[in-house]
Each structure stands twice: as C-alpha cells, then as structure tokens.
C-alpha cells in the first residue's frame, strides 16, 4: 500500500502525456490517433469522449424513474379476497413487524440505501473530477485520489445488487399463486425500479476512471 501511495508524484508518466493512448480494456499502448486496439479491437480513446455528459444523463434518468418506483406498489398481495398493496418501504416495514429483521434489513439496504448511496456517489465523483466545477480544485493530497478510486470501485461492484428486489418480486409472484388463500402479483413499481437500476449501472459504466487520476496534475 505504502509503496503504491508513496509513488504519487513526479515519476508517473501517463500514456496521454507521452503522446500515446492506452486501451481501456486490455492495456495495450498505441500511438495517439490509432482508432482501434490491435490486440482486443476495442475503440481507443485517450479519455472517453463526453464521459461526464453521459454520466449526468444516465444519473438523472435513474433518479427520475426511482421516484415512481417508491410511490407505486411493488407487490399486490391478495389474501381471502382482500388486496393489499406494498411499496418498497412498506414491504420492508412489514417484514420488520413479522420479526424478520435480517431480511427487512437486506431489503432496505438493497432497495433504498444502495440506490440512494449510488446516486450520491456517482454525482459526487462526476462533480469532483470535472475541472470546470467549483468542487474540482479541492484536492489536498494524493490519498484523496485513492479514496475516490475506491468509491468508484464500490459503486461499480454494488450497482447490480439492487436488482435483488425485482427478482424477489418475480419469484414471489411465480410461487405464491394459491388461488383463494393467497396470491401475489407484481406491481408497476417493479418496472421503474429495474429501469432505475439499469440507468445507474449505465452511469457508472460511462464514467472513465482515468478522469479521477487526471486531477493529480493539479496537486503539484
């Protein structure tokens, strides 16, 4: 760890500074201006064109569809003729009343904490790496870069796991079709929730991590 962080500084030469372009998928180095990687065939860009615009666009789309996902019901439970509608939060609260605190926590974390945390984290990263924004210049030490990198890795890793709630709804509605006793059907919020997850995943995928490290130049 210390060797990696102690190295921050003068002897780092990036591909861009050397007039080269590195492939983002296989690391192969090419002269600047080469259109495609000779090793893996990926399109070569020194930095992803319009990365931040795409991140903001997907992020806003994700936030917008997250609103109906919380307002409309996720589950429609019919038991002996009476239908109850459960929103995301309502489902978690009900699990808690039944005493399954562990599962309630999983549902709450996967469908509320993680999505909201992701919105905040992606927005923060996109603001902080943008040299045009006011927050952009506030880099005090090299440690911050590693912290931002780790935040990005966490967001990238964790994003897909929000899909859990949609799968739970799918399994429940396939399984619980016991005619009169109990039936569970999916609600419309399942659609907007999965869209929200997909959009935030796309936002994370559009983010070029090399932008995080470009801020290092301002440090010296």
């Amino acid at each position: 760890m210390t060797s990696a962080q102690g190295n921050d500084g003068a002897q780092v030469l990036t591909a861009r500074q050397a007039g080269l372009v590195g492939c983002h998928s296989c690391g192969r180095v090419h002269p600047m201006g080469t259109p495609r990687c000779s090793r893996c065939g990926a399109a070569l860009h020194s930095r992803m064109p319009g990365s931040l615009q795409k991140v903001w666009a997907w992020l806003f789309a994700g936030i917008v569809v997250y609103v109906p996902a919380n307002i409309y019901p996720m589950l429609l439970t019919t038991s002996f003729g009476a239908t109850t509608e459960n929103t995301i939060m309502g489902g978690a609260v009900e699990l808690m009343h039944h005493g399954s605190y562990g599962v309630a926590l999983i549902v709450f974390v996967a469908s509320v904490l993680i999505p909201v945390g992701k919105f905040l984290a992606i927005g923060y990263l996109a603001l902080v790496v943008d040299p045009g924004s006011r927050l952009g210049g506030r880099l005090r030490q090299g440690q911050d870069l590693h912290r931002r990198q780790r935040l990005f890795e966490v967001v990238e890793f964790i994003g897909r796991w929000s899909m859990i709630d949609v799968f739970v709804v799918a399994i429940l509605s396939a399984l619980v079709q016991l005619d009169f006793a109990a039936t569970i059907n999916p609600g419309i919020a399942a659609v907007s929730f999965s869209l929200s997850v997909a959009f935030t995943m796309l936002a994370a995928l559009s983010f070029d991590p090399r932008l995080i490290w470009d801020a290092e130049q301002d440090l010296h």
Partner: protein
Amino acid sequence: MNQTTSTAQAPGDRVGPGGLDPSLLIACPTCDALQLDRPVPAGARARCHRCGTILMAPREGAMTRIVMLAATALVLMVAAVFFPFLELSAGGMVRRSSLLDAVLAFSSGLLLPLTFAVAALIIVLPVLRLASILYALAPMALGWHRARHGVAAFRLAEALRPWAMAEIFIVGVAVALVKVAGLARLGIGPAFWTFAALVLVTVLNDTYMCRLTVWKTLEERRRP
C-alpha cells in the same frame, strides 16, 4: 499458494518520452499510467505503481480451468432452467415453479417488458457469456490457434459481465424464501441446488480469469 505482489515499474528516466516503444509498455486501464510490460510469474500479481489496480495475475493452467468451469456452468444452466425450482404447499394445494415460471411472472400487461429483461438477466446473458468464453478460450486451452472470431467473442463476454446476474437472482431466491416461510410449507427442488452450484462455479471462474493474460494469449495465438 505462494502469492507475491509486485508493483509494476514506471518507465522512469530510462526511456525518454520521445523514444517509448508502445509494445514494451502497458497503460493502466484505470489511471492511464505507463509501466513496463514485464513477464509476471504464475501465482504473482502485478499492480499498477500509481493506483494499485491489479494489472495481471496469471495462474498455472488457468485457461484449462476457465474452460472446464464454463462448460460445467453451461450444463448446470440447462438443468436449472428445466427442473422444478421451488415447491410451495399450503392448505392441500401444491405449487411447483421452475425458473421459467419466475421469468414469466411479469408477463401480464404493462409489466411484459420486464419479462424479457428478467429472462435476459438470469438466463440469456449468462448463457451467452459462458458460450462466448468457451468459444474464445477453448482453442487457447488446447494450444490451438485462436478461433476466427475469438477476439470479438471475448470482448462480448467482457461487455456482458455486469449484466449477467445469476448470482444476484440466487440471493433474491433466499430472500423470497424467508418472506413466504410463514405463509406456507416450502420445498426446494433440484434446480435450486444446480443453480446455486452454477453461481459458485461462475464466481470461481471470474476469480481465475486474468483478463490481460487472456488478451495477450489471444494476440500470440493469432492465425499466421
């Protein structure tokens, strides 16, 4: 296993910026820092000297292992789709559902698009990803030249990685089981266990895979 972690070397002052030979260098995909591309012994890991991202972690016989695991996962997938997955009984009624039933749960009205999405995420994309890994890497494991579209196939497998969500589905099943546990008696079918095994195999496969080594091998085994 003896795992050493070495930090890759910066090209430093030994080569002037004018005289850099691109074929001797790697640019870190995460932070764009240039480093010398030196052979990494099997079992060791090379980290980027700037951001610490693991650049290479080759392992002995990894290609063969990846191909075997991918083939296993494909077979398990077929079993998981067609065998009964879960069984629910309450008040004398029994309801069996397979993986396909879970997919078809959204097939009414406005929710229809979600059926396609769920089918894609838990069945189609994982299968597609496994198949393209097999297609690209089986010739490598056997020591042949690379397949005609091997590079494109492996690129597809890499692009699909975030979207193949079989392991998330299995955790979803666990959550759903707890939710219905109070409501009815539950039985777990053979497909549940095959699917759980599938997830384990897929995770193992992803840890064995060193992407950079795969790309390099694909490049070396180009058809003459």
